[in-house]
C-alpha cells in the first residue's frame, strides 16, 4: 500500500469533503485517513487543521493522545496481541514471547521484512478463549506459541 504524495493529497481532499458538515468530525477524519493511507503524517495534520479551523498543535495533540493512531507507516499487516488479565490467566506471555522472537521486534516495531507491525492490545473481547491475537481484522482464539507460528506462516503466504 505505497501511496504517492499526490494520491495522499487527492485522498485527503476527498475525505475532508466527505466529512464536511459532520458534528465532531476530527476522529472520523483521522480514522478515514489512517484506513486509506495507513498512517497520519505531519502534512495530513497541517491540512486537517486548516480545514477544521484548528491549530496544528490541537490536531497533533489528538493524534498523539490515542494509541490507535499512528504517525509512521506500518508493516503490511498489524498483529495485535492481548496482554490483559483473562489472556494472562491463559499464559499469553508465552505467546507474546514467541511473537517478539519470531518477528524480531518489540511492541510498536515492524519486522525487518516489512510484513508485520507488532502491537499490544488490552482486551479484544475474546476473553473466554484466550490467548487472543488479531491480525488486521481477523481474530484468533486459544493462540499458543505453536498456533501463532502457524498463523504468521499463513499470513506470509497470502
Amino acid at each position, binding site marked *: 500500500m505505497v501511496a504517492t504524495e499526490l494520491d495522499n493529497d487527492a485522498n485527503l481532499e476527498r475525505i475532508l469533503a466527505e466529512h464536511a458538515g459532520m*458534528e*465532531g*468530525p*476530527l*476522529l*472520523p477524519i*483521522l*480514522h478515514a485517513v489512517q484506513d486509506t493511507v495507513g498512517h497520519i503524517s505531519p502534512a495530513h495534520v497541517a491540512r486537517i487543521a486548516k480545514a*477544521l479551523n484548528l491549530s496544528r498543535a490541537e490536531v497533533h*495533540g*489528538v493524534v498523539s*493522545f*490515542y*494509541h*490507535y*493512531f499512528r504517525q509512521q507507516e506500518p508493516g503490511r499487516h498489524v498483529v*495485535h496481541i492481548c496482554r*490483559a*488479565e*483473562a*489472556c*494472562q*490467566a*491463559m*499464559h499469553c506471555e508465552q505467546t507474546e514471547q514467541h511473537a517478539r522472537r519470531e518477528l524480531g521486534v518489540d511492541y510498536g516495531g515492524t519486522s525487518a521484512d516489512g510484513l508485520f507491525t507488532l502491537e499490544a*492490545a*488490552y*482486551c*479484544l*473481547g*475474546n*476473553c*473466554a*478463549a*484466550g490467548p*487472543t491475537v*488479531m491480525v488486521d*481484522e*481477523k*481474530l*484468533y*482464539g*486459544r493462540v499458543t506459541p505453536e498456533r501463532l507460528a502457524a498463523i504468521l506462516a499463513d499470513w506470509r503466504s497470502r
Partner: protein
Amino acid sequence: MALRIYISRDAAAQALGADETAAALQVAAAAKGTSITLTRVGSRGMVWLEPLIEVEDASGQRIAYGPVTADDVPGLVQAGLFDAAPHRLRLGRVEDMPWFAQQERLTFARVGVIDPVSVDDYVAHGGFAGLKRAFGLSGAEIVGEVLESGLRGRGGAAFPTGIKWRTVLEQHSPQKYVVCNADEGDSGTFSDRMLMEGDPLCLIEGMLIAGLAVGATRGYIYLRCEYPHAGHALREAIEAARVRGYLGPDVCGSGKAFELEVRMGAGAYICGEETALLESLEGKRAEVRYRPPLPAIKGLFGEPTIINNVISLASVPIILERGAAYYRDFGMGRSRGTLPIQLAGNLKRGGLVEKAFGVTLRELLYDFGGGSASGRPLRAVQVGGPLGAYLPESQFDTPLDYEAFTAIGALVGHGGIVAFDDTVDMARMARYAMEFCAIESCGKCTPCRIGSTRGVEVINRILLGNEKQANLTQLENLCETMQHGSLCGLGGMTPFPVMSAIKHFPGDFARDR
C-alpha cells in the same frame, strides 16, 4: 425446501474458526447435492462449544453440534448431519442443555437465535414491541417505567437509569442527545460486543425509546476500535432499520425524528469514562471533565445528554414490552433484574451467562464454568474489570449483588469474571494493575499519572526483595493517595486490585524469588 443451518458470526466464534466451518459446510452440501440455507446468527454464549452449528430437523427443532471445526465437517456430514443424526458432537436442543436452561435470558433472549440484521426476524421474535408501547406513553411515563423497573447502569457505576433519564427529561433544550457507551474497555468483558453482534436492533430500539422518553433526536454509539465485527453488525442493522422507517426524520410515522450514527474510538481505555467519551466524540483528547455539570445537564456539545452502557440500553425494550414489574421481579435486594455475566480466563466452560442477581460466584465458576480449564485448582478471581478487586476462594460464596460486593470491598462492575488457577503470581498481577493505569492514564491529575508509575517501581523493588516491608508500606500509602486524590475511577480504583492482592495473597509479596 432448503435445509436450514445456523452458525454464529460472533467474533469469538470466528476466532475459533466459524467462517472456515461455514465454508466447509457449503462445500459438503454441494458435494452431497443437498440444498442448504446457512444463516449467520449471534453466539449462544457457549464459547467453549464454538464453532457451534444448529441444524433444523424434520420437526423444525434446532439441533446443535459443537465444537465443529472445518476438519470435522466431512465426517459429520457423512454421519448424517443433515438429518440431525447422532454423533459424538451432537448436543441436542440448546434450550435443553443445563448450562443454558438454568439461565434467565431477558436481554439476551434473541442473541444466537435470530439473524441479527433482519428486521423481520427481530419483529417475529418480539422486537419493537417495547417501542410500540412507548409510542402510546408520555415521556414522563416511559421514564417512570424505567425507574420502577429498578434498572441500574450496567457500565460499572450502577446508577439508577431512570433517575438519569428524568434529569435529561427536565432540561429545556431544542437539542438533546442519546449516547451509547460501547467502549467496553474492561478486560474480561464482552457482553456489549456479543449483544451488538447478536442483536444490534435491540440496542437501536433501546436508544429509540430513550430518545422518545427525553425528547432527544440524535444518537451516537461510541464503539471501541478493537471491535470491527461489532461495527459491521451495527452499521448493517442501522441501515436495515432506516430502510424500514425505524430511523430517520419520521420514525414509524410518529412525526418524531431519530438519527443514529456509529463513531469509532481509537484505543484509549479512558474513553469508557463517560465525560472522556464525550470529549472524544467532540473530537478532542479524551481528558476527563470536572463535574458538575453532569452530562445529563451539559453533555455532548454542551447539550443535555443521556449516556448509558450498551446493556443498560438493550435492557429497556423488554422493560417497556413486559412492564417494570416483570423485570423488577428478578434479582435480590437493590439489584433488580438480570446481569449478563461473562465467564473468562482460565475456565473450562467460558462464555456468557445471563442470570438474575443473587447467583453466587461459586455457582458461576463451578456449575457454569466447570472449574479451571487447566484442571488445576482455582486460586483467585477478578470481578468487574481491571479496576475490580481480586477475590480468594473464601469469598466465592458472595452473591452477585452490588451491595454485597461493596461490602467486601469489591466491584460487580460490568459483570466480567476472570478466573486464575494456582499458577498465578498475585504480586505480578498487582504490578500489572499499576502498569495498566500508567499506560491508560489521561494525565489530568497527578496521583494517577505519577502515582501509577511509582507504583510499578515500588512493586518491582518488592519483587526483587529490596526492603520488602518498607516498600509494602509505601505501596499502601501510594494506594491511599491515588484512591482519595484522583479525579476519576482509573486512578481512584486501581488500588482495589492492588490492595486486595496484598490483603488476600500476602505470601506472594513475602516470598523470596
